[in-house]
């Protein structure tokens, strides 16, 4: 357990024997129990790529005000047990690693970037002079202010040790080296067109980087990882929503009165059902994305990967269902 900033903490986890190993940049689902109920969230792994059966991995968690999972993870004591999913995501450095890289991390978006850098640092140490000479990595690290920069000190020390690594720390509260725009980025990295670009962070940052890349014709070299903000908790009725049925492989438009079950049936689908009043659970299905409101309990479900009862759920946004 390492405190990185006032609200960010790195948790070192010891996966079980069946841990399949991960590649730097991937994320993993973490499950904690909060007041009896399990909560699942995805976090980027901040430690470098590790082989099958690795003894340790790390995640770096920023505490979100009012966030159930991040608060619980910050309250964990040493030795606590958390559920660990399978590492996933294709935000990874392809082998062989391109000689010229630009890595951009904003806020907690620096975590997968850090994993990549740690990997690069480890492998460079053992490689030939020739390989070392050709490599050039530029990291742009955006944060609100110097105190808020996750891994700020570690990045600085890496930069002093490795000649191929250049770090640009940007702080939103500074005028001189504040938030970058597309033009600023092109000036800062003149050879942008030659670089493989990885960006992770808030939507605004991703927009800036993709814009700059488009300007120099390198859009195809941009790899991005968006940290998905939870869907809006709006409970206003919506006219019609698109429901993607993942298993059936079709998208249907759900509209008109009544709960999702009735809407899906009107759209020609035949989900399993029983009581149609929310007690028997025959129509329970996994909602992968989107917001629904349970009319029997008034509970609004907007987190990804939650089970819902179709017969008492009103759609409040476009949905993805495991049907």
């Amino acid at each position, binding site marked *: 357990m390492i405190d990185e900033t006032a609200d960010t903490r790195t948790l070192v986890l010891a996966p079980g024997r069946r841990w399949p190993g991960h590649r730097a940049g991937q994320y993993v689902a973490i*499950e904690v*129990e909060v*007041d*009896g*109920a*399990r*909560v*699942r969230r995805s976090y980027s792994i901040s430690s470098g790529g590790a082989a099958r059966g690795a003894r340790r991995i790390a995640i770096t968690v920023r505490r979100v005000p009012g966030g159930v999972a991040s608060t619980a993870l910050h309250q964990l004591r040493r030795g606590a047990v958390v559920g660990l999913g399978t590492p996933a995501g294709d935000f990874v450095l392809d082998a062989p690693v391109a000689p010229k890289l630009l890595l951009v991390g904003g806020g907690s978006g620096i975590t997968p970037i850090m994993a990549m850098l740690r990997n690069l640092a480890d492998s460079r140490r053992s490689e030939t002079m020739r390989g070392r000479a050709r490599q050039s990595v530029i990291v742009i690290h955006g944060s609100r202010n110097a105190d808020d920069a996750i891994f700020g000190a570690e990045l600085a020390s890496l930069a002093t040790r490795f000649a191929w690594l250049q770090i640009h720390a940007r702080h939103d509260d500074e005028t001189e080296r504040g938030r970058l725009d597309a033009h600023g980025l092109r000036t800062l990295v003149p050879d942008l067109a030659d670089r493989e670009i990885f960006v992770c962070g808030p939507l605004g940052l991703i927009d800036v980087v993709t814009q700059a890349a488009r300007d120099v014709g390198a859009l195809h070299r941009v790899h991005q990882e968006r940290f998905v903000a939870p869907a809006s908790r709006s409970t206003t009725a919506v006219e019609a929503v698109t429901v993607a049925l993942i298993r059936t492989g079709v998208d249907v438009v759900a509209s008109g009165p009544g709960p999702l079950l009735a809407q899906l049936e009107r759209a020609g689908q035949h989900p399993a059902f*029983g*009581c149609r*009043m*929310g*007690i*028997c*659970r*025959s129509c*329970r299905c996994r909602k992968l994305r989107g917001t629904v409101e349970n009319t029997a*309990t*008034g*509970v609004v479900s907007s987190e990804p990967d939650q*089970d819902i009862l179709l017969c008492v759920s009103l759609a409040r946004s476009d949905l993805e269902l495991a049907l």
Partner: protein
Amino acid sequence: MIAHSSKPLLPAEADRFGRELDAVRARVLADLGQRDVDHIRGVVRLVRYGDVAGRALLHAGVDPLTFALGVAMLGGAKILENMEIGHNVMHGQYDWTGDPELDSQRYEWDMVADEDHWRRSHNAEHHVFTNILGRDRDIGYTFLRVSAAQPWHPLHVFQPAAAVALALLFQWGIALHDVHLDESLAGRQSFAALRRRAAPVLRKAGWQLAKDYLVFPAVALWNAPRVALGNLLANGVRNLWAFAIIFCGHFPEGVRLYDPEQTRDERRGDWYLRQLHGSANITARRAFHVLSGHLSYQIEHHLFPDLPAARYPEIAAQVQEICARYGQAYNTGRFSAQFASVARLLVRNAFPAVAPRWFTRSVARVLLRARPPGRARAHAPAVTAPAEASAASA
């Protein structure tokens, strides 16, 4: 005797009644948390220890004392597993925890009834169409005449014996109930459909029989007969107990049956009223309630089938208070009283309504060696079936 009759409610009153119960439900939902999970995991642990200890005593012991103790522990573990864990988990009472071991759709219980069948027949039929004649197949499990509102058939004269047999073989009764054997016999279901329905039951039953009567006895080597007999008795104890609790929950005097006509335009409040009057509670101590999977709070269970059952005691106080304000009977009594009431009805309804009352009553007295009905019970709530009402107040 005290007659607890229920006041008929105007639609607006029934709506208000329903909203008050909805509020009870909402309060509990908002309060669900660690203690509910701790409770059920505690029971899971108890079942595991009880199961291992009971089997160890049966396997290792040679004397009758460890045999009796082993049967009691294994039987108790099976009872707790079936009733407090299996039944309640499969209702979805713990789905909110997200714990795969407490997941309603994935749970498997230690008895022969197929889980998918049961989830459908119990959760989607019995709990929705509770006590509606012709729609709730759990009324006397389609072959017992538990109320004078059901038509009489000559074979019903054997129902006291049939009920005893069902009690001894209750798990098989539940498993067979879900294959709709009665419908095939009556020609309403093809035998091909029956075979399709029976396939998962046969599979599950095969595993159960192999586990209790082949694998475990084989492991016990020379102690095989003792282990097989112990497992048989443990299953039997569980059967008797489950039968007793479940029959007391639905078939004592005072429980109402409904015509499909009556329930056609049912609103939420009416649905709650039907659940209330279609069920009966047992007044007992905490251990009894846990051992019965809290089905001794059958009324609360039917009002709120998906709230964790261990919450029923605290809910019961609120439900009783609401019922009192709306002038609704709340059918509860001691186990002995409720069970005697079930037995009386089973004997009395074995005969057609035209049988002379002195005849049915004397048969009941001989078979049950009971005092005349009416004096034994403190609470005798309203009864819909006229024949029963007059008999009970005689």
